């Protein structure tokens, strides 16, 4: 039986955060309804495609999925559950503090969601203001408490590293707050995307590279001391709580993404829906779940290298050979990185350390060039 992950994208937000360049926008409830209907119809038309697959992870992301009423979300999930879905499937919902309340959470839990991802970003209110978030630290803490009460024993909290003049003490506070309330923490180094208000405000960055790298390394250490094991560049989890769904992205496993702007890697092909909600809704009343998709190039060797180096497992020599790559060409380079403390290696594998994660773009490029991929 093949495993499959399913991603559902809800591109609606109350307002746009200063740093966000995802596909999301404020929309009215009619559009909410129309999208929900479109998603359901497409899920139904997946039947033939996913015959022989067992769904072992589901992820509702956005935007702010919790802008939709909880029963609508459960409706969508129930369509998915009608398929061959593992009893131990990880079913995640992204939630924005301030858009959830106890009844809804209970309803969602009953409906089958068993993991919740709370976008806290920071436990320090002044930092939240500079990000343009619509909630404060207290609300985020309350949201986590609510989730626990509603029966969620798998919670993720998001944090951001590198806010303007973020001092170590603040980061420490955010880490401690998150660690006490979650099984999984995603800590992202802030990236300023052109076109966002934050980029306009800080065209030269929020702090210099040396400072950000120090904060990141501090974060890795601190999280470790709280019992969170780093398994990817930005993802940390208590043992047993690594995100099954997200791991699919980095290990080239199958997943289907439904919704405007959603991406898939399925049966050896990469494709996505255009970032156009109207078009997605319009195409839904047909027999083909994939109406309107755009295909992308696949380059397995390159993707394997760039994605696996993001993870704590790193690259495996065997896998490289399976993909037709001769690992020997990069030996000297890997030695160099290992000696310098950016990586660790043994005869079978090569992985980056947190220091190496920090310059992983450069390392990946060098390795690709050395291996002639």
């Amino acid at each position, binding site marked *: 039986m093949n495993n499959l992950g399913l991603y559902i994208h809800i591109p609606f937000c109350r307002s746009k955060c200063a740093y966000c360049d995802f596909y999301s926008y404020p929309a009215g409830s009619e559009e909410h309804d129309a999208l929900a209907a479109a998603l359901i119809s497409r899920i139904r038309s997946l039947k033939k495609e996913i015959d022989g697959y067992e769904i072992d992870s589901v992820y509702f992301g956005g935007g702010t999925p919790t802008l939709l009423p909880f029963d609508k979300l459960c409706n969508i999930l129930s369509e998915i559950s009608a398929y061959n879905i593992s009893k131990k499937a990880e079913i995640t919902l992204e939630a924005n503090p301030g858009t959830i309340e106890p009844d809804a959470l209970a309803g969602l839990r009953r409906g089958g969601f068993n993991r919740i991802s709370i976008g806290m970003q920071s436990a320090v209110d002044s930092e939240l203001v500079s990000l343009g978030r619509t909630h404060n630290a207290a609300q985020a803490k309350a949201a986590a408490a609510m989730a626990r009460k509603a029966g969620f024993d798998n919670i993720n909290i998001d944090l951001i590293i590198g806010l303007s003049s973020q001092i170590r003490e603040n980061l420490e506070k955010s880490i401690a707050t998150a660690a006490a309330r979650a099984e999984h923490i995603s800590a992202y180094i802030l990236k300023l995307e052109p076109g966002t208000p934050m980029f306009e405000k800080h065209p030269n960055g929020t702090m210099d590279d040396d400072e950000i*790298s120090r904060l990141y390394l501090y974060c890795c250490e601190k999280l470790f001391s709280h019992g969170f094991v780093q398994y990817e560049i930005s993802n940390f989890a208590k043992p047993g709580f690594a995100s099954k769904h997200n791991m699919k*992205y980095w290990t080239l496993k199958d997943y289907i993404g439904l919704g405007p702007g959603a991406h898939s*890697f399925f049966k050896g092909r990469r494709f996505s829906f255009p970032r156009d909600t109207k078009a997605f809704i319009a195409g839904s009343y047909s027999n083909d779940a994939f109406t309107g998709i755009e295909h*992308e190039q696949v380059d397995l060797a390159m993707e394997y290298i760039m*994605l696996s180096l993001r993870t704590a497992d790193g690259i495996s020599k065997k896998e490289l050979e399976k993909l037709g790559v001769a690992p020997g060409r990069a030996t000297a380079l890997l030695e*160099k990185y290992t000696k310098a403390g*950016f990586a660790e290696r043994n005869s079978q594998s090569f992985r980056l350390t947190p220091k190496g994660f920090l*310059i992983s773009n450069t390392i990946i490029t060098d390795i690709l060039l050395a291996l002639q991929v």
Partner: protein
Amino acid sequence: MSDISKIRNFSIIAHIDHGKSTLADRLIEACSAVSKREMTNQILDNMDLERERGITIKAHAVSLRYNAKNGEVYLLNLIDTPGHVDFNYEVSRSLRACEGALLVVDAAQGVEAQTLANTYLALDEGLEIIPVINKIDLAAANPEWAKKEIEDIIGIVAEDAPCISAKLGTNIDSVLEKIISEIPPPGGDKEAPLKALIFDSQYDSYRGVIVYIRVFDGCVKTGDRIKMMVTGKEYEVAEVGIMLPIGYQRCDELSAGAVGYLSASIKNVQDTAIGDTITLSENPVQAPLPGYRKALPMVYSGIYPADGSKYPDLRDALEKLRLNDSALLFEPESSIALGFGFRCGFLGLLHMDIIQERIEQEFNIDIIATAPSVVYKVTLNNKTEKIIENPQEYPDPGNVEKAYEPFVKASIITPPEYVGNIMDLCQNRRGIHKGMNYLGPDRVEISYELPLNEIIFNFFDVLKSRTKGYASLDYELIDYREASLVKLDILLNGEMVDALSFIVHSEKAYPRARSIVEKLKDNIPRQMFEIPVQAAIGGKIIARETVKALRKDVLAKCYGGDISRKKKLLEKQKEGKKKMRSFGSISLTHEAFMAVLKQDE
């Protein structure tokens, strides 16, 4: 045209952009059957690069039939000349082939540095000079003032100078009439032994090298056995003819007074030396025409392929370019830093620029060029003399008894308000003030003797920017002078990068060293470790900067939707890295390397 009295051989000389080429177009139009539709602008500038830059690089010639007002038909041979100071020798040989010259002066700009320089060349050749005032269509045009400048500064009568607008085609026939009335017909004896001047040559894939000649005495026809007097080589003439606006036209013979071409299955343009004399093998002339000079390069630079595997392509490109450019010299050389390449000699910076651009554009080869360097001379302790064309060959200072650098005489013409700026600039470049000459109320000619190596970088650009574009420059090599020279080496991560070494006057060593290490620091991409950048003289470090180590280059989020974008970024990064050269353990982009070679004020 068998009547020698109806021939006129002339050239057009002017300062850059005064309208020489446009006038040539109008003359061709006025005389020929080539309709406006058939004629592309500036037919004599037939290389794309020339058109792009608006300058003439190669000299060409064209024969025009003119029906004069007096009812007679004349044959006007227009020999075009390059206007840039780098190609002075070619200009002088083209002028040698003429009896007269049109001196074109911009009615708004008046007499400028190259107006003077070219006029002196023409006077040296004994030509009849006809001033022509151009661009009378401009609002700022002042023809009377321009005429007066010509009379006062150059000293020739300009009262009757035709006032024209080449752009609009105004008054062109007055120029043609002046040509036939003022320029003497050529002399020469058809029966005497053949004496013909090579003033240009061009490689043609069918005919081999086409030699452009002015016949002074005798005549030449198909089947004749000719001899090049300087090179000593002999050939059999396959074809002779003249150049018409629409193309080449064969004819039976070229005789005394004529301008035309011959082809003789000559394979190499190198075998046809500009300024050489052609005569008949069986009945040679006693002495060749005077004035022959081997074109000497003034500026050398190392040219290397950015991608080492393209070395053969680069060699082919240089050989093809040399087909039509006998002044281009090159020899293989190698550098630890850059691999295998060529040391190339050029007549000057413009020549160098053009060749580099042609290699990149026409042959599609990315190249790295070392800083242009001049030719130094040293006398070693054991009294032997050495000529240094490559900074890496500079001997150990301990072995050098005396060193010499080339000096030029520069003439700068400017409005008086910039004199201070200019003198500042020249002083900064170790110039020796030789005099100042008021050419008129708003024109000053400043003379300086300057070391050539102070001019070859960006002297011209800085001059233009300090004088709001008004100043003009002309220079020529005068002699070699003793100088206190040192070789400055650049070390990256403790290793010397030979391609960055250069020779500098000891006075300038420290400031140059500082500026280079600072530029390198700003241009070297951060790498895994901290990189010391140092400048040294004879092993002693005199300047140092540090490139900090790379700390952050990461994509924090990489979920389903990010993967394609990330792949594109990686591809870009890979391409960028591929183009980097490794200098020891350091990678440098081509841009970084070049940025370093540019000098500041």
